[in-house]
């Protein structure tokens, strides 16, 4: 194994200091990189070829499965015919172009607008009912001082995050389904059974409850990390100045959480049109598309089930473009608020 003869200098090593994304604070002017122009490209390539080789498998996978499919979005402007060939690429090359016809169809399709509406309702419901829970739980756990109690409750709260959606929904079925424990108890006491799993009216709340059960516990980790990094002298100083328990929380703890909350809000808003694809797809048949269809399942239904690939791809493209806009806009807002967002200015 040949090692490089041109060591990467210390000065270069210092340019990429560790910058935790979650930490807010002022982002000073970026340090200027020391000139690397002294070394020729050939020399740098020879020095770093092993490193480049190491990144190759991941880069190839990303190019193949994340970038190449972007080109496949051309089917949204075609009348894609899957029966031309067994190979999708051959089919794409031989399918007729139809311009914006698919998009026109989408915007006239009431099922699409129903999916948009369901998506937005779920997004807002989750934002209001789900988002604050990890923050409150983290404050609660953080105030628990007994290490044993803390570790055990954390272990339990984290656990459902590692369950698959199939399992989570199966568990909910045992609780709230027609043969579930709730119905069982109601029947034993002389009432009618109740099947919450198949009730379209409460579907959005059911989905939110499942998300809370699965991931609210996991969500506290980021906040706990932020809470652990609070300087404890601040609490003491505040107490000396006569601030009680609640005022310390308001003036010391919450400001420490602000950057994390802002970051997570930005991420959530940027991802607003993605509201639990697998989770909803698994339960779509329970309540029907009227209540359960969201944008992602709309794409799935039309493309995978109905084999109307062009139509589905067009819907997917609409969602993708709007999502990209949302991510960028959410970051812009974060920057304006003085927070860091997902990427730096």
């Amino acid at each position: 194994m040949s090692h490089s003869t041109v060591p990467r200098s210390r000065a270069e090593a210092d340019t990429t200091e560790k910058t935790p994304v979650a930490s807010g604070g002022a982002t000073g002017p970026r340090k200027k990189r020391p000139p690397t122009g002294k070394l020729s490209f050939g020399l740098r390539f020879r020095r770093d070829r092993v490193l480049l080789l190491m990144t190759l498998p991941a880069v190839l996978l990303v190019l193949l499965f994340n970038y190449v499919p972007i080109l496949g979005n051309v089917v949204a402007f075609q009348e894609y015919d899957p029966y031309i060939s067994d190979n999708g690429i051959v089919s794409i090359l031989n399918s007729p172009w139809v311009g914006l016809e698919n998009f026109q169809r989408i915007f006239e399709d009431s099922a699409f607008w129903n999916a948009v509406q369901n998506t937005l309702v779920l997004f807002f419901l989750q934002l209001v009912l789900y988002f604050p829970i990890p923050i409150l739980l983290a404050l609660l756990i953080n105030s628990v001082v007994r290490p044993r109690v803390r570790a055990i409750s954390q272990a339990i709260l984290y656990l459902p995050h590692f369950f698959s959606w199939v399992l989570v929904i199966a568990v909910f079925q045992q609780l709230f389904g027609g043969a579930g424990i709730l119905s069982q108890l109601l029947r034993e006491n002389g009432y009618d059974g109740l099947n919450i799993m198949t009730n379209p009216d409460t579907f959005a709340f059911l989905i939110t409850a499942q998300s809370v059960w699965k991931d609210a516990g996991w969500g506290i980790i980021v906040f706990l990390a932020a809470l652990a990094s609070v300087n404890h002298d601040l609490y003491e100083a505040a107490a000396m100045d006569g601030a009680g328990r609640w005022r310390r929380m308001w003036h010391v703890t919450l400001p420490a959480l602000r950057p994390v909350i802002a970051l997570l809000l930005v991420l959530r808003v940027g991802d607003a049109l993605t509201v639990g694809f697998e989770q909803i797809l698994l339960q779509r048949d329970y309540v029907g598309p009227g209540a359960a269809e969201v944008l992602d399942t709309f794409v799935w239904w039309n493309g995978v089930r109905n084999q109307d690939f062009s139509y589905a791809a067009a819907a997917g493209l609409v969602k993708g473009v709007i999502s990209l806009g949302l991510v960028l806009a959410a970051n812009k807002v974060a920057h304006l608020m003085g927070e860091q967002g997902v990427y730096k200015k």
Partner: protein
Amino acid sequence: MSAVIDKDVRQPERAPARKPGRWAAPPRPVWEEKPSTAGVAGKGLVLALACLAIVFPLWIVIVTSLSSRQTIDEAGGLVMIPKDITFVAYQELLSGGQVTRAAIISIVITLVGTMFSMTVSVLCAYGLSRSGSLGHRWILMILLATMFFSAGLIPTYLLVQSIGLTDTYLALILPSAISVFNILVLRGFFTGISQELIDSARIDGAGDFRILWQIVMPLSRAVLAVITLFYAVGYWSAWFNASLYLNDQEMMPLQNVMIQLVQKQEAPVGLGQAIKTGELSGLAVQMAVMVMALLPVAVLSPFVQKHFKKGMLTGAVKG
């Protein structure tokens, strides 16, 4: 060389500050008010309820899976209080047949997939972690950009089908093999490892692969454990790609079989007879499949728990 490294790896031993009971609260700082009894009770109650909301459903599932048909019939369905313990449901499920096969498929995919994902991710993370190296900013940008857009379900589906992965297990591994997020987390750790250590190894004649294997990876055990768990759970929990790309029911992994058994209330292939003749409770079988799906993650994740924080947003992201 490794002896030298081990010395660095070892954490300074924590001074055993007087041995309090493991449940006891550590002393409070003098300026802090004594907590009121009502406050402590209230907090304890909320926390207990939150934990109960998670444990209680799992308890029912596990107890029912271990109950005999008689107990289940007496309880009128799910069993809350165990009366007898029998492993007959597990015996039936694991004595060959659909569920046994699906479980083996899931285990193999999880092991192979996780190894593949970790290899690719660790190599890439290290390749990008040495600052000043040629092109690492460009490659980082290529990876980061994927966090802002997704090509969409249909184009991805058409691609996977075009390159001939349909009806192969590669379709369950390759398209979702790497997570850019995980690579960034690993890279964040690798960049934090002291440059002197790496330079000195290089002077000793170690190449990049050897530096990665003998210095960087041993120093990053905690984060490697967390990311391995993330990938493994991802493979173990996945069902959508199998439903999309596999047509043969015999090839389906455990999660997809669980959809059929529990969600669609079908009897497992080959066990229908035993359930009809009354030896076996269909409900116990369903619950046993659920336990099989939850057991590996429930057993493994607490071991890595104290490192979870390291798998979060600490990756050094700098474009």
